[in-house]
């Protein structure tokens, strides 16, 4: 029973528009990063832009394919897909190829599959499927442990492969859990810990402790009537102080030199133009030199002349920043923010819990990629290799993200037909 007589049903045009816009910007950015004025051909398969065109074609075919199948099929196949993805991840350990120190590729000749990109999709399906089962209560410890296992299994495998960036994305699932009852307090606590950690590395540990104690005393003084709060603040301050000392010990004794260096670079404590700081420096120079309107499409110098490494993949945003300027930045960031907000909006209008949670999963994954990738290019996040969805060069990433959006659109399109 379709409300419209067309083949697809009512698909969300906003999402489709954003998806196509991002893909187009991505292709344009990859093209300019490898463009040679005298010698270029749009379908040159030896160039990243030529291949990306192929990936876009495959992705759009996948998109159409997903629109044609029954949404219930996706739901019912959730665990199977999850299982398959975990399987692929395991194959990497046996037949995987190492790229840049990370062992996370399976070589199929022309196509190098990166299972860690797809496993996010599988995890989102499985997590949503489990949490949407009628008898599952997230407040129950047993269910929480199963949730932990669904997220933890791929996370550990990816970490084992050395892909810190992809692993970090799984932190995003706390937003999904938050939606099913994980208290806000826990997320705030997480943010508090991150803040304290960063501060303890930036400021002398004893100054920081002193500051914390001072703030605590002020809070306690004004709330001295409430015994409960006094205890709470006191304990938080005490634990924080111990933690600060701990962070220092871990930073200086447990972490390896290159970790320390990368963290220092991100915190702005080291700024030599070599080694770890080089990438970030060149990336900021490229973006910063774009100015308000940019140098014009195909006119970038920092990006065109190889000053920025990993240009068409991790640092693709540099091309946009340099050639399209702050206006380009606004457009890309607005598109991503709109994409995430639109998915959340769609999620909230779902009647199916599965639909809703899956959409939250997708929104969270895109959110994590978005903030880490762009944050990294301008020095707000550590330099961790992670693609910018729909824009960075790479088949696995593009197909995986398109699958997620296609599934979101399909689920939304069918929401009135199949709800429980």
């Amino acid at each position: 029973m379709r409300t419209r007589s067309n083949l697809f049903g009512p698909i969300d045009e906003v999402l489709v528009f954003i998806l196509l816009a991002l893909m187009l910007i991505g292709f344009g950015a990859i093209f300019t990063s490898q463009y040679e004025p005298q010698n270029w051909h749009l379908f040159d398969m030896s160039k990243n832009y030529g291949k990306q065109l192929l990936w876009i074609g495959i992705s759009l075919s996948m998109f159409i394919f997903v629109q044609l199948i029954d949404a219930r099929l996706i739901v019912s196949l959730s665990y199977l897909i999850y299982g398959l993805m975990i399987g692929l991840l395991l194959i990497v350990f046996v037949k995987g190829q190492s790229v840049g120190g990370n062992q996370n590729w399976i070589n199929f000749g022309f196509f190098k599959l990166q299972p860690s990109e797809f496993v996010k999709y599988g995890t989102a399906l499985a997590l949503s499927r489990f949490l949407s089962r009628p008898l599952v209560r997230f407040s129950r410890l047993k269910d929480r442990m199963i949730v932990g296992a669904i997220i933890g299994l791929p996370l550990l495998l990816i970490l084992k492969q050395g892909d810190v960036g992809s692993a970090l994305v799984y932190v995003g699932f706390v937003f999904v859990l938050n939606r099913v009852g994980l208290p806000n307090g826990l997320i705030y606590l997480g943010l508090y810990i991150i803040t304290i950690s960063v501060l303890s590395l930036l400021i002398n540990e004893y100054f920081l402790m002193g500051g914390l104690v001072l703030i605590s005393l002020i809070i306690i003084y004004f709330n001295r009537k409430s015994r409960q709060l006094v205890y709470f603040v006191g304990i938080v301050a005490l634990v924080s102080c111990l933690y600060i000392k701990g962070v220092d010990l871990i930073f200086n004794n447990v972490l390896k030199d290159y970790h320390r260096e990368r963290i220092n670079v991100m915190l702005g404590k080291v700024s030599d133009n070599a080694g770890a700081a080089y990438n970030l420096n060149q990336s900021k120079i490229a973006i910063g030199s774009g100015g308000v309107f940019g140098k014009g499409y195909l006119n970038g110098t920092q990006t065109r002349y190889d000053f920025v490494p990993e240009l068409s993949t991790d640092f693709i945003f540099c091309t946009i920043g340099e050639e399209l300027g702050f206006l380009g930045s606004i457009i890309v960031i607005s598109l991503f923010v709109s994409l995430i907000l639109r998915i959340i909006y769609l999620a909230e209008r779902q009647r199916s819990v599965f639909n809703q949670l899956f959409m939250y999963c997708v929104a969270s994954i895109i959110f994590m990629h978005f903030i880490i990738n762009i944050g990294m290019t301008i020095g707000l996040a550590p330099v961790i290799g992670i693609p910018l969805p729909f824009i960075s060069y790479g088949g696995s990433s593009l197909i995986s993200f398109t699958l997620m959006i296609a599934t979101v659109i399909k689920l939304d399109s069918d929401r009135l037909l199949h709800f429980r």
Partner: protein
Amino acid sequence: MIEKEQQYGILRTMTIVIGLILLAKLFMIQVINPSYKLRARNNVVKMRTEFPSRGLIFDRNGKVIVYNDPVYDIMVTAKQLKDIDTVKLCQLLELTQADFEERMGKVIEAKSPRKPVIFLRNITPVKFAKFHEHLYEFKGFSFDKKSIRRYPNGGAAHVLGYISEVNDREIEASDGYYKPGDYAGTIGLEKAYEEKLRGIKGIRYEVVDVFNNLQGSFNNGAEDIIPEAGTDLMSSLDIDLQIYGEALMKNKLGSVVAIEPSTGEVLAYVSSPGYDPNLLSGRYRGHNYSILSQDTLKPLYNRPVSAAYPPGSTFKPMMSLIAYQEGIKKPTDGYVCNGGYRIPGHTVGCHAHVPLQSGRDAIRFSCNAYYCDILSKMLSGKQYGSVEEAYKVWADYLDQFGFGKRLNIDVLSENTGNVPSVEYYNKIYGKNRWKASTVISLAIGQGEILATPLQMANEVAIIANRGYYYEPHLVKAEVKNDTARTTRFEKHIIKIDASLFEEVVLGMEDVFISGTGRGVFKEGFSQCGKTGTAENPHGKDHSLFVAFAPKDDPKIAIAVIVENAGFGSTYAAPIASLMMEKYVNDSISSDRIWIEEKMLKANLISHEDAK
């Protein structure tokens, strides 16, 4: 169903907040902070200095005496080095394996792996052409085209000078023109005319990639500055005469300075021993310089302007002129010399000669007593009031003749020579405690008086001109874009009547006909001169000769000093006479070839000196 207590999770808020944070940071680096734009430009736009070609130097007849030769520096960019076939490379560049390793070690030491560093300097075009064919096989190797100064005649080193890398002091003094590694004239015309010769540097802005590979010109060259070639110089030297003079002075210490009297243009400027200026240009400059600077014969010493000698008897023509002008003697006055000039406690000896019939005989016989008489009479002359005043008048004539001061020739390091002042004698003997007899040796160019070869040549040019000179100079004209610009030099007129010069000139002609220079008399070739012997307390006397030719409308005035060669007539006079004949007649007549050969072969440098 699950709990629905949290409508809209925290994600929505965080997306908006973090989106705004990212935009704020982007706004800061893209719009507010200008440093990234500057750094981006510095990243890709490299300023390359384009060196203008240095001005050439021609001789007075338009022959090239200094030009630029292309040479190549082989550069290495350490970061780009890859699979070098060292055996082949060494073969092409004619290096030994050890040499290669040492040079490569220096490149690595330079610690600038992304920038080209000099590997091998100043390769000749021929050697470079061989290497260039194979350049593509040596990744990381590149080249830089430069030019070095070449001196095709291999002479006139002391005039031309040389160029060398600028030092810190010169860089600082240049108002930002010189950068470390630039070359500038260090001495000679190269230094004196540095600002004309060097031209104006150009700037080329180039776009490079991260490996410093050239990607094209920046902004289509709109901001480039095209270098302006240096001004060419036309030297006053006659390079053939110069080389001839150097050949005659070979194996002798001393100087030859020849001047065109009517203009003050220096025709020849020989400082012996000299050196081939090519030695101080190019790859082995440092090595050669240290050899030359340690040579006991001091080949780097610029004798014509730096060495000063007692002018001896070459002083006498001027002394006659002063006497005639001051009325001390008339040109027609004779003089009887009794084998010397006797004053209480001292006798200035004279050689045996017949009594002087007139002034010209004094020069012909170089009579010491005649000149002592002049100085004695002048300093005791009542018309001056006192010895001091009389001496001042005498010293003023010397000043007019260019003694005791710089003549402002356009090579540097000019010595003033010495004309003792009244104050000097007052200090030594006390005021009013000295008189003619005290300073009598000045009369015959001995004593405290010292003159450079250039000053002696200038003196004889004045006599040739019958009373004036132009400041001697080595550059005739500056040539730019095919237009020559002649510099006007100051004319100095000596306050002596032109008519008084005839007697002196006749005397100087007699020197050749029947006087001390008769050994180099040449029938049909009019020449006038005066021998001299400079007393040398350290060894054998210096042989001096000043001369000009022809007698009327003189073309050349010359001073020759041959150190430790004894009387002026033995070496200095023949060399001067040959130089004049060569210049005026363009060749040496066959009957004088034997003199030429004798002079060319004469070796006056003892083995002891040459150590």
